[in-house]
């Protein structure tokens, strides 16, 4: 198996006035290609911080992060932007989509930044919309879609250009259980079909039940890391 993500002795310390807050302490984590990993834990446990660091959205105080063989912690801003553009897909909790763009345009915007041709973008976005079950809704704007449909568009956008890693931060937090179940199933199916690695942060037991591997965090430390199913 190929290692997609590797964190070694990762620490993140925030300074709040004169107090040091240890958001992450000595995190060691390896994620293999095609894995579906769930980072769980209560609020403030550090799961979102860890996710942000893997995605190059935040920088560690010390330690090493590798994504697809590249040292994320040593990259500058533009290198990080390149990495996120080409290798990482993101799904956030809510308000993920650009409100003035249609579902199809939201999916195509990242591909456009990557320099894909209009025809290729159109072809791929229509195909992925069909895969996520939104065929016929491609010209709707986010405000015309339900929360579940919006998250499906976000997943489609995250995986459309086959990144090696998709990071999802509480993707089901604003969904009812039926929509959450559908979304998780979709993510797992997409992961398997496209050989994409998913790392999902959550405190939703439903999400945890779908994960192939569960990593539990508490007070910035990994307290459990085991395979499921």
């Amino acid at each position: 198996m190929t290692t997609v993500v590797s964190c070694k002795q990762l620490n993140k310390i925030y300074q709040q006035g004169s107090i040091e807050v240890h958001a992450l302490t000595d995190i060691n984590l390896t994620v293999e290609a095609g894995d579906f990993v769930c980072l769980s834990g209560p609020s403030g446990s550090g799961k979102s911080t860890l996710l942000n660091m893997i995605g190059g959205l935040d920088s560690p105080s010390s330690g090493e992060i590798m994504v697809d063989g590249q040292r994320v912690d040593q990259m500058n801003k533009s290198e990080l932007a390149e990495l996120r553009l080409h290798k990482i897909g993101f799904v956030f909790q809510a308000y993920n989509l650009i409100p003035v763009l249609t579902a199809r345009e939201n999916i195509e915007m990242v591909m456009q930044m990557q320099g894909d041709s209009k025809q290729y973008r159109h072809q791929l976005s229509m195909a992925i919309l069909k895969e996520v079950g939104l065929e016929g809704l491609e010209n709707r704007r986010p405000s015309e879609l339900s929360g579940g449909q919006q998250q499906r568009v976000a997943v489609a956008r995250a995986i459309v250009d086959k990144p090696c890693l998709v990071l999802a931060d509480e993707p089901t937090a604003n969904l009812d259980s039926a929509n959450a179940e559908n979304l998780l199933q979709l993510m797992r199916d997409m992961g398997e079909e496209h050989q994409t690695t998913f790392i999902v942060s959550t405190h939703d037991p439903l999400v945890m039940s779908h994960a192939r591997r569960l990593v539990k965090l508490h007070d910035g430390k990994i307290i459990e890391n085991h395979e499921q199913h």
Partner: protein
Amino acid sequence: MAGNWLLAWRNIWRQPRRTVLTMLAIAFGAALLVFSIGLQLGQYDLMIQNAVRLYQGLFQVQQQGYHDDAKIRTSIPGIELLARKLRQQSGLDSIAARANGFALISSAKRTYGSLVVGVQPEYEKYVSTLPGVIKQGRYLSSDNAHELVIGESLARNMKIKPGDEITLMGSGRDGSIAASIIPVVGIYASGSRELDRQLVQMPLAAFQDIFSMQDHGHAIVIYHEDVKQQSQLHAVFKDLIADQQQLVVLSWDEIQPGVKQMIELDYSSGWLMYIVLVAVIVFSILNTFLMSVLERTREFGIMLALGYTPYNIGRLVMQEAFILTSIALIAGTLIGLGVNYYFYIYGLTFSGMDEIARMYNMPAVIRPQISPDSVLIGPGIIFLFTLLAALYPASRIRKLEPVEAMNHI
């Protein structure tokens, strides 16, 4: 990049009311600037036209050095022949020869120093408005008549009227005494205090006789109603006198630098007002752009997370500014141009202007100037400063961190 323009276009319509109000502010400012600058330049055209038409002409052919040191001996021989040649070769009738001299003129009661000018009455009416503003008596009858016309103020000061005689005493071209007793046949009121107080005109032949000028004169005055053709005409006349290297063609602004300086001063002070107007417009736009960027901070955070760079997002904001400003400026410029065109056709007049204009034989209406300068300068400056203003909110994006931005409420 088409996608970015599309995104920019949709972004500016997120808040349609705000966008429309901002566009209206820009369009109103642009229209006002186009109209004001057009009117201002139109007024300058009128001022130049009046200055040129009143007496000095658009050009004068003189001996080199005469304008700076007006000595009677610095004269042009065969001036009437030269004037005729220029009329024939240029096809313009509005070309007249003049000779100038200084003399003391005396009535029964008083003596004044004055500028005595010998003119060709037949052609003078084409180059100057003076023949048309005779208030008492008549203008000079022929080239050979022994008579003169005198300004209204000078006549009043000397207490003379048409039919009276004045004694003229000056210095001839050859150093002899130039003296004569000449009847006054007319009194003019040009509206120019300077001319009305000191200028006396007589037929050129009489002047040449009294001042021992032989066939000499000092200036060939050339008038053309279209000041905009100044540079082409200047080249034409320069070419026509190229065989006489001691002659120069002076344009109106060299002859009357005061008028040009006054226009430049007024133009500068006008710009103070325009700068205030542009500043008000630019600050209102800056506010719109700033609001639009601040309310999208979270969205920009997501875009950064997806791989957009701050430069990409900054460029998007600049594209929005470009679209919004361009539409508003095009609309404003067309409105301003439309208003200018209306007044260009029908003219703009103020109360009392008719009467004054008729009195001084001048046009009674101001017509805004329609030219690339009058149409493009104002909107161009708004465009430039608006884009500069948009740089500020765009530059704030450079400092955005994705996580902080996404947590922005």
